[in-house]
């Protein structure tokens, strides 16, 4: 049975092991990009330039980076309202994401969706869903289409620990196993369902992994703050799905550095918890690993500087972008492009 330990201890034969230098640099770059973009989103709402709500993935970057890096073009991502990182990790331009958060005309959905509904179909990001659990069955449907059409793409559904206690989670898992669908369910267990510790409202210790057996699935519990571990686990699950061997349920242990949403200062956390997790900050962990593997400081700094420039440029472009035109209000309610409900 897979555990956190045996997946983390895969032998590393230097940087050119099963993962390799190029992929590792990509994993690092992705995590740095998510970190910088999310930090920028936070700064922008402190300046009141990001309206509405916003749910950041600061501290959870390794899960998004690890899975996205393991995906192939054509694979589909289904995200939650905490979906900025998963959207960016698929290669969606930072400007498009920040523009949507700032509800500008240059945003991914020109301000019609907002932070909780990021979608970029051309990048395989098939929506971010703000009703807990709703997208697990939807990901099943996309996987059913792949099975029916005989394509080899895989649908990946990301969700938080809180989702494991809603009915749609259980319906989707049973359904996916019975229909043997090429879908991967990824639980980001960041220890809190909104403001409440997940352990205090869940019948089992590991909210996703401990439910796997009920659906005849392998128990997979991994270190979600280690991008190498996430990447390897993802690759195994993709191989299984593409081979027609059905779904996987993966619980990634991680931690969000910020509150649940912009309104939450996260005062419910016990003293020292955040500091302990920050020692295991995924970006820091990965930077140290690259150094151990002999990647020189200059190469690492080049990635960081490049990403910072991308985020800076995107920020400026968004600040200069116009608000959406008012006639956008009534477009795309129906497929004819409008909102007519009568003749």
């Amino acid at each position, binding site marked *: 049975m897979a555990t956190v330990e045996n997946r983390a201890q895969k032998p590393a034969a230097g940087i050119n092991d099963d993962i390799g230098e190029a992929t590792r640099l990509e994993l690092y770059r992705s995590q740095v990009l998510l970190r910088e973009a999310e930090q920028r989103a936070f700064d922008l709402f402190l300046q009141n330039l990001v309206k509405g709500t916003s749910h950041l993935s600061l501290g959870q970057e390794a899960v998004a980076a690890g899975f996205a890096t393991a995906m192939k073009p054509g694979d*589909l991502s289904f995200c939650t309202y905490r979906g900025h990182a998963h959207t960016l990790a698929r290669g969606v331009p930072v400007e498009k994401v920040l523009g949507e958060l700032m509800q500008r005309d240059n945003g*991914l*959905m*020109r301000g*019609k*969706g907002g932070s909780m*509904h990021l*979608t*970029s*179909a*051309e990048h395989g990001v*098939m*929506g971010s*869903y703000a*009703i807990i*659990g*709703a*997208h*697990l*069955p*939807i*990901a*099943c*449907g*996309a*996987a*059913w*289409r*792949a099975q*029916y*059409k005989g394509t080899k793409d895989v*649908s990946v559904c990301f969700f938080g620990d809180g989702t494991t206690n809603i*009915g*749609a989670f259980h*319906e*989707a898992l*049973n*359904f996916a196993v*019975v*229909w043997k669908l090429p879908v991967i369910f990824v639980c980001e267990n960041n220890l809190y369902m909104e403001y409440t510790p997940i352990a205090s409202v869940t019948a089992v210790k590991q909210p996703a992994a401990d439910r796997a057996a009920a659906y005849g699935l392998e128990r997979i519990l991994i270190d979600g703050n280690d991008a190498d571990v996430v990447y390897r686990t993802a690759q195994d699950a993709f191989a299984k799905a593409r081979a027609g061997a059905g779904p996987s349920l993966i619980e990634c242990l991680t931690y969000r550095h910020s509150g649940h949403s912009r309104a939450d200062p996260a005062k419910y956390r016990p003293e020292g918890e955040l500091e302990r997790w920050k020692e295991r900050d995924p970006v820091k962990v990965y930077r140290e690993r690259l150094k151990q593997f002999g990647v020189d400081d200059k190469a690492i700094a080049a990635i960081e500087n490049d990403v910072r420039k991308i985020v800076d440029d995107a920020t400026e472009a968004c600040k200069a972008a116009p608000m959406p035109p008012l006639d*956008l209000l009534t*477009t*795309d*309610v*129906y*497929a004819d*492009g409008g*909102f*007519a*409900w*009568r*003749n």
Partner: protein
Amino acid sequence: MAELTYRDAVARGIAQEMERDEDVVFLGEDVADAGGVFKATVGLLEKFGPIRVRDTPISEQAIMGAAMGAAMTGLKPIAEIMFSDFFAVCFDYIANEFPKSRYMSNGQLKCPLVVRTGNGAGSRFGAQHSQSVENWCMMIPGLKVVAPSNPRDVIGLMAAAVRDPDPVIFFEHKSLYATKGEVPDGEIVDTLGTAAIARPGKDATILALALMVPRALAAAEKLKAEHGIDCEVVDVRSLVPLDTQTILGSVARTHRLFTVEENPRLCGWGAEIVSIVADEAFYDLDGPPVRITTPHIPLPAADILEDIALPTVDRIVDRVKRSMNS
């Protein structure tokens, strides 16, 4: 031309579309092996095989979500929710997911699917298996809503729904499954958003939907024969899009409006139409519009109670006659 039951028209309508387009797939509880609890999908499994006609667990959220995911990515699913009352356990998809994905994504996502469901009373099933819930769906921007009253419309509107690029909720009436009607041979394709004048008349317009259409027609015959009142019966057929032109045109000719609605009174579809007529055709009216509905009650199981809950032929006759004579 052949006589067909409403029940068999469902299977023929689905088969017509599955034969035409192999992206059309069908899923639901007991729909394949068992042929549906109302026997409306008998023969589809044998004809199209277990890959296209699939039984599901009792998981309405999984059914709806799977249909949506498949629709978003290229299939044209028809999903069955056995009783429309069960919409309540998967309402997230009806209210939040199907109808909003296109808008929220600024047109990037699509959701071309059909949810067909057994709606309405008459089977003595009690309050949780008998409701008329078309108004639950009518109020949601992004959905289309149809409710056929006869076998020909079942086939034609099913074709229109499957071929439509938007999510369509297709209400079949449980008490109509055994009824028969003439159906032409060959392919039948109808148009969403069109009402039909089921019986022309000059004195009053009676609007009806699904099971209320045959009752309105019977009432119209009685009103003519016994009271000399010549009613025009309009089968609304499609609540969204709504064919207001046919409705307003009829009211302009008859100057009187009655609605016959199976739903409980509050927020029934007739209220919306009365408000449109009041707004746009007030001076065409020679008297106040009248809504004939089920009272604001859950439905009882006992036949003698259920029978008096729904608008009956006699109640329609009585209400129209009183109003016309006052």
